């Protein structure tokens, strides 16, 4: 390990994560690791008693938080000891055709900002039990702790039951984000399949599938969702399923459009000349070549689904209290909008920041992956 002038960097520098990278002159990578290290230490120190409690609590989320914390520490210090490993990670040791896209993405400052925001949100969510001293449903003394304004003890105040708003928002992130991830996985998978089949098969199949897509797209999303949820008296699992099953048509449209052009390329013709079966061509040759737009749609879709879930829960048709999701917190807070505005305000800000992060990353991915924009 040497710095830019060729001097050796002493191994002891690795005790502080990121320091060797900083000495090597790689500011962004070094500072990120440093931040990660400092964050890990800070959480470990301030939450020491909670971490100890986690060992005896035997709850899944405490264990998850513990594993996350250990993983953070491992990442920060192992990379600090061997920066080349980080270098390989950062320049894309993945499949070679993703490398130009990653290079493009890394140049986009806003996209990187979005990525950092996302990382921070995910960490905060996973580490929630160590970050706050309250439980998500822990009701304080109704008389004494109801609607307390933000203070040192309750950084974002308390709600109508005297519950800590910060805690509710952190735990609410788990609910909102998991719903988003599962629903997007369903809708993207389905949308890609339908789009690829329609685009590749063409003719009557294409016509039929796309008319169905037209029909579904004609419903304002929220209207379709609340209608279905009301008719089926949906439980949370069903709601996630319905979210996924109603949001795929736009992906299908995008994928179909791209498949139509990929289908005409020479390598597909070659595959056909080799006598490969249609499913094999679709899955092995066509779908991998339309993954770019699909990834973009998934990222932007995540932001969108978080907004939709919040809307549903706000109407009282999504996640049901006392489970905290961001929409539920806003719904509960909005009755006391004037007397305790912090509940609604901060839960909404959590949504805004998360959606901004997904949108920034999504836009960055689009710029990096869209061949039409390549200059």
């Amino acid at each position, binding site marked *: 390990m040497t710095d830019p002038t060729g001097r050796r960097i002493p191994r002891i520098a690795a005790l502080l994560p990121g320091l060797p990278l900083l000495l090597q002159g790689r500011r962004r990578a070094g500072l990120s690791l440093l931040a990660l290290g400092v964050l890990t230490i800070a959480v470990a120190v301030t939450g020491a008693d909670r971490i100890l409690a986690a060992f005896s609590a035997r709850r899944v989320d405490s264990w998850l938080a513990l594993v996350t914390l250990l993983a953070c520490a491992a990442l920060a210090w192992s990379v600090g000891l061997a920066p080349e490993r980080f270098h390989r990670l950062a320049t894309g040791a993945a499949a070679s055709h993703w490398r130009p896209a990653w290079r493009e993405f890394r140049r986009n400052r806003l996209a990187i900002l979005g990525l950092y925001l996302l990382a921070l949100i995910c960490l905060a969510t996973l580490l929630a039990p160590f970050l706050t001293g309250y439980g998500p449903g822990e009701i304080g003394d109704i008389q004494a702790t109801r609607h307390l304004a933000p203070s040192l003890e309750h950084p974002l105040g308390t709600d109508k039951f005297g519950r800590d708003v910060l805690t509710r928002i952190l735990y609410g992130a788990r609910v909102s984000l998991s719903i988003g991830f599962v629903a997007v996985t369903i809708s993207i998978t389905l949308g890609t399949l339908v789009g690829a089949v329609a685009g590749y098969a063409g003719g009557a199949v294409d016509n039929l599938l796309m008319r169905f897509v037209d029909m579904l*797209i004609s*419903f304002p*999303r929220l*209207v379709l969702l609340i*209608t279905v949820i009301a008719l089926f008296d949906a439980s949370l699992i069903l709601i996630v399923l319905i979210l996924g099953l109603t949001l795929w048509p736009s992906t299908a449209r995008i994928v179909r459009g791209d498949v139509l052009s990929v289908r005409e390329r020479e390598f597909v013709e070659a595959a056909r000349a080799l006598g490969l079966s249609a499913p094999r061509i679709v899955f092995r040759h066509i779908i991998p070549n339309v993954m770019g737009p699909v990834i973009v749609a998934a990222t932007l879709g995540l932001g969108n689904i978080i*907004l939709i879930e919040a809307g549903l829960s706000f109407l009282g048709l999504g996640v049901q209290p006392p489970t905290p999701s961001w929409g539920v917190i806003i719904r509960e807070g909005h009755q006391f909008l004037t007397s305790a505005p912090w509940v609604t305000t901060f839960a909404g800000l959590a949504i805004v920041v998360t959606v901004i992060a997904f949108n920034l990353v999504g836009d960055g991915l689009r710029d990096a992956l869209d061949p039409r924009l390549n200059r």
Partner: protein
Amino acid sequence: MTAYIGRRLLHAIPLTLGILTLVFVLVQLAPGDPAALYIQPNVAPEVIEQMRENWGLDQPIHIQYFQWMKSFVTGDFGYSLAQHRPVTAILADRIPNTLILSGTALLIIFALGIALGIIQAVRQHSALDNVLTFGSLFIYSMPSFWLALMLILIFSSKLHTVGWWPDWLTFPPSGITSSVGYESLGFWGKLADRLHHLVLPSIALGVSSAAAVARYMRSSMLEVIRQDYIRTARAKGLPERAVILKHALKNALLPIITLFGLYLPFLLSGAVLVETVFAWPGMGKTIVDAIYARDYPVVMATSFLFAVMVVVGNLIADVLYAVIDPRIRYD
């Protein structure tokens, strides 16, 4: 072009029928039937059976389907279970309110979006451009109902406690008219009162899409400005104002028209939430109230009409595009 418009119209009809079929299938798939709602210990099973018969629920499914299609196509949406009057009568009251709200929101979306987009394109990479780009990203990422709540918090409950804040800038948090004293106002007074109530909901509904439109407008304008005919216009000495607003704007607006059809579903989804927050008696509030009351005929009819509004909106966008852009061939 007439043939093209005719074809779009013909395309919209099977689409509408398809939407109707989809709603029917949803109702059929749902557990229980409308009569099941009335099953109670003190209602005799015979009465329930009679209801099934009256509503045609004992008929085979294809007969029910055709009955359903026939009644919807002829504008008979059934009878509200909660309000005890025809669904058509309820919706006739509510649709104008939704149209007023979404119309105003559309005006904000396109006026604000286009204006901001032009400013950003003309001053590309300036500090103003960057601020506006980030600002629109922020607003675009906001849930509309949260923005609505924040607007209420700021403009109807907090600011008027500030002594010098003018009264006319304090907006009412709910309803379409003042509940007290509205009837005693003159024509202009009534109009002013209605507009006053319209301000916050239409802003809450409009600005996030306006931010999106601004983004598209900016890139569309930038693309047009690079073209040769703009250089020609500048070279012959036209003032910059005329180059941008007369020559470039027309072509830059073309792709924006397609956004109208694209953003209509978003706008109407937003309307459901914003109407609920502001207690605005439109279709969105109707469907939400109907769901709380398990008033399925109203839910079905309203969601169908929402979809029809989107179909009609798309039709308008297509026709507008065909009328405005003569370069496109339709065959």
